[in-house]
């Protein structure tokens, strides 16, 4: 058994109008990784690649120790996936879904599914098409967590949910990760979701990885400096990641050790780090 839940090595995927360049990163077992980036940065493409929904042009992807091109049945048993839209056919009801999944997953846990359904307040007698977005998401999460998965993959699963539901779901994720062999990969363009729970952050922009590091390291690496426009322009340019000028002043994302004395210096959050980096690229 490897120490990595997911490993990408120089993965390339070419579309007509988009390309994933040489993507490499690892998600160590027992950890939560967040993939952040704009819409269209390549987050979903990466997730589809690791699940072998699409084929890569080059590189190597390993999921739970298995080459993604030949994901075995037993490995798929251990993966739970939640997509941004609910994937259950619209006419199905909770009980029917339970029966279906019981016939698909060898290690299906009916009790766990029923418990999740109860804690999430999922309606018994409604068809999926009458579920709210929050309910659909919770249903998908309940399904993903009820077959003894070791790896949870979530594609934009928490976007569009209200804060209370999001918070409930984050709790469920923390419970899942109490088991040391379990790992989570979650993509989102809402950085505040990920800021709370992730151990690692992979930041994707325009098909390339800008950074993939421990979240705490990223957060301590940068600070936001505020000051007058000319003051900030006088700072060493190579230390400035990005700068935003307004009529009355400017703020810049800068490496912590280069933070000058005599300026207003604030800790940077993930959103600022993402925005300043994208601005730099442009």
């Amino acid at each position, binding site marked *: 058994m490897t120490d990595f839940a997911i490993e990408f090595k120089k993965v390339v995927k070419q579309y007509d109008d988009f390309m994933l360049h040489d993507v490499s990163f690892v998600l160590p077992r*027992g950890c939560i990784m967040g993939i952040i980036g704009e819409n269209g940065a390549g987050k979903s493409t990466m997730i589809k690649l690791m699940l072998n929904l699409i084929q890569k042009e080059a590189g190597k992807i390993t999921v739970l120790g298995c080459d993604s091109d030949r994901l075995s049945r037993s490995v798929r048993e251990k993966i739970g996936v939640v997509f941004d839209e609910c994937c259950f056919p619209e006419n199905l009801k909770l009980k029917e879904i339970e029966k279906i999944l019981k016939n698909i997953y060898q290690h299906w846990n009916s009790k766990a599914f029923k418990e999740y359904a109860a804690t999430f307040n999922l309606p018994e007698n409604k068809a999926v098409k009458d579920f709210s977005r929050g309910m659909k998401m919770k249903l998908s999460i309940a399904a993903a967590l009820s077959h003894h998965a070791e790896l949870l993959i979530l594609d934009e699963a928490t976007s569009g949910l209200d804060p209370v539901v999001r918070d409930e779901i984050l709790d469920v994720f923390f419970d899942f*990760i109490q088991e*040391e062999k379990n790992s989570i990969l979650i993509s989102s363009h809402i950085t505040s979701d990920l800021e709370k729970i992730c151990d*690692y952050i992979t930041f994707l922009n325009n098909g390339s990885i800008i950074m993939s590091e*421990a979240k*705490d390291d990223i957060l301590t690496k940068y600070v936001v400096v505020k000051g007058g426009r000319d003051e900030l322009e006088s700072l060493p340019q190579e230390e400035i990641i990005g700068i935003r000028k307004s009529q009355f002043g400017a703020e810049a994302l800068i490496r912590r050790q280069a933070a000058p004395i005599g300026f207003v210096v604030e800790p940077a959050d993930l959103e600022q780090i993402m925005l300043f980096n994208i601005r730099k690229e442009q």
Partner: protein
Amino acid sequence: MKVIINNASGVPIYEQIVLQIKNQIIAGELKEGEILPSMRLLAKEQRISVITTKRAYEELEREGFIYSVVGKGSFVAPQNIELIREQHLREIEEKMREIFDLAETAGIESEELREMLYLIEEEKKTGDKGNDGFCD
């Protein structure tokens, strides 16, 4: 065990955890042999990364405050209070030397330094009192 994390302080979270657990051990609030919450539980309850809690526990282990048993968890290590005190004294001495060095380069008299020390002490006292009142 009590851990309160301040997200706005700018002090890395793992350092905050290390400091707070260390203080509780030195103060005797955490007794020798007592089991600490698992890293994953602490991360869950505090809504922080497992890496952070892991780093904190590793730091505590390196400094000899706790020890880990594989499969069982982390426990408060037997403390040699004398040794800790000595270690702290040595650290303080080192920092004081730095202060004196800096004062010398800046041409600050030792009288002024004493004044400063006194002021800081006063400030700490009133600050702590305010804090205590707030917490209790």
